[in-house]
């Protein structure tokens, strides 16, 4: 029966992916993408990647969907003009053939995967006791491959700098996004008062259990970012001007602590990002706790976009 579920899921995901690509209306395509992200979460569960499922649930559907729908609403007026530029049948045919070739090549590669499959799971489990964490994925992210995680946190910062630098001169360093005027007694304001306290607790919980169970800082930070964005959408709070010092300090705090711990590792453990014996778990917790607010802030600010209003 589980095969039937998997086949049904695969077909549904394909149907929604196709809809996202071919729908005429961008709004409809984005709604399809939201549903697509949700179904991918179920697919990840079926692939036994619960950590990835959590990330997909948080980022793939939720944040990316909200980001794209805002842009779609803004660009709605250009829809008709853009539709006229749709390429003719010959181009579409060539494109279809090219993508079919890509699919066939990938499918052949999938069918030709080596057996038995190569895996690093035994190596990951062999040394996990030394890291002090119980979730092998957290061990990979913060011990075996912590360089990747550090670089990722820095990439996110660079992306944010890129977004901010798209602001026009007159609002340089100002507040991102439009001012949200919402009925303070309306349902949205009520919702944005009730949900965030629960969401923040859940976010911290998901972060905390990440040491031993599926969860972790990315997923927790995304939930907290979404809660903050909700209060912004409801007009309860406003995005701070991006030139505020406290904001920038908070943004670089996580990566800075990460680098500091890494440098300390070079001194005491013999390698950059190495942990001295017996200190792995506390240091991992220090890094994660410092990264989490920075990640939540950077994710939320990436979504709000370039400054649109002067700082005053």
């Amino acid at each position, binding site marked *: 029966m589980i095969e039937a579920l998997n086949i049904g899921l695969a077909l549904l995901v394909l149907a929604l992916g196709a809809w996202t690509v071919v729908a005429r209306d961008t709004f409809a395509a984005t709604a399809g993408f939201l549903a697509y992200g949700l179904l991918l979460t179920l697919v990840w569960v079926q692939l036994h990647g619960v950590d990835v499922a959590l990330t997909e649930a948080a980022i793939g559907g939720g944040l990316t969907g909200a980001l794209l729908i805002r842009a779609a609403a803004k660009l709605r007026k250009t829809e008709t003009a853009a539709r006229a530029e749709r390429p003719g049948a010959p181009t579409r045919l060539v494109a279809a053939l090219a993508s079919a070739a890509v699919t066939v090549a990938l499918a052949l590669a999938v069918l030709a995967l080596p057996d038995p499959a190569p895996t690093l799971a035994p190596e990951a489990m062999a040394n996990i006791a030394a890291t002090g964490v119980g979730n092998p994925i957290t061990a990979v992210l913060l011990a075996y491959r912590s360089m990747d995680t550090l670089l990722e946190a820095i990439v996110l910062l660079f992306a944010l700098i890129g977004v901010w630098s798209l602001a026009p001169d007159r609002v340089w360093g100002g507040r991102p996004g439009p001012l949200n005027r919402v009925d303070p007694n309306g*349902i*949205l304001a009520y*919702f944005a008062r*009730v*949900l965030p306290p*629960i969401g923040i607790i859940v976010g911290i919980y998901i972060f905390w259990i990440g040491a031993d169970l599926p969860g972790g800082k990315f997923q927790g930070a995304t939930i907290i970012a979404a809660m903050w964005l909700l209060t912004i959408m409801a007009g309860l709070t406003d995005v701070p001007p991006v030139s505020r010092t406290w904001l920038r300090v908070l943004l670089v705090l996580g990566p800075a602590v990460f680098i500091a711990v890494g440098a300390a590792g070079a001194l005491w453990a013999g390698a950059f990002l190495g942990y001295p014996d017996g200190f792995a778990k506390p240091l991992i917790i220090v890094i994660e706790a410092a990264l989490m607010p920075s990640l939540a802030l950077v994710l939320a600010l990436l979504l709000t976009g370039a400054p649109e209003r002067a700082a005053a």
Partner: protein
Amino acid sequence: MSAVLDVFTFAAVTAGAFFYLAGTVGLLRFPDSLTRLHALTKADNLGLALVVLGLLPRVDSVLAGLKLVAIWLLVLLAGAAASQLIAQTVIRRRPEP
């Protein structure tokens, strides 16, 4: 005892699945936006509520049970808020009577 609980789970989950069916049929067959919204909220509130109710006897800790109830409350709250916002867009686009 466990047989009684199994029957309870069976009944509640089946009833929940029925409300999902009702919600989908309503969403597809009802004539206009507001009646479709009405059908949708049945799946939101009752479908998930009965599924959660049916799964409650099967949890192995109080925390897991609390999480199940929290999920249902969150969906209830979100469903109410989103439905109101959707209804506002529907009403706004309707011609004045």
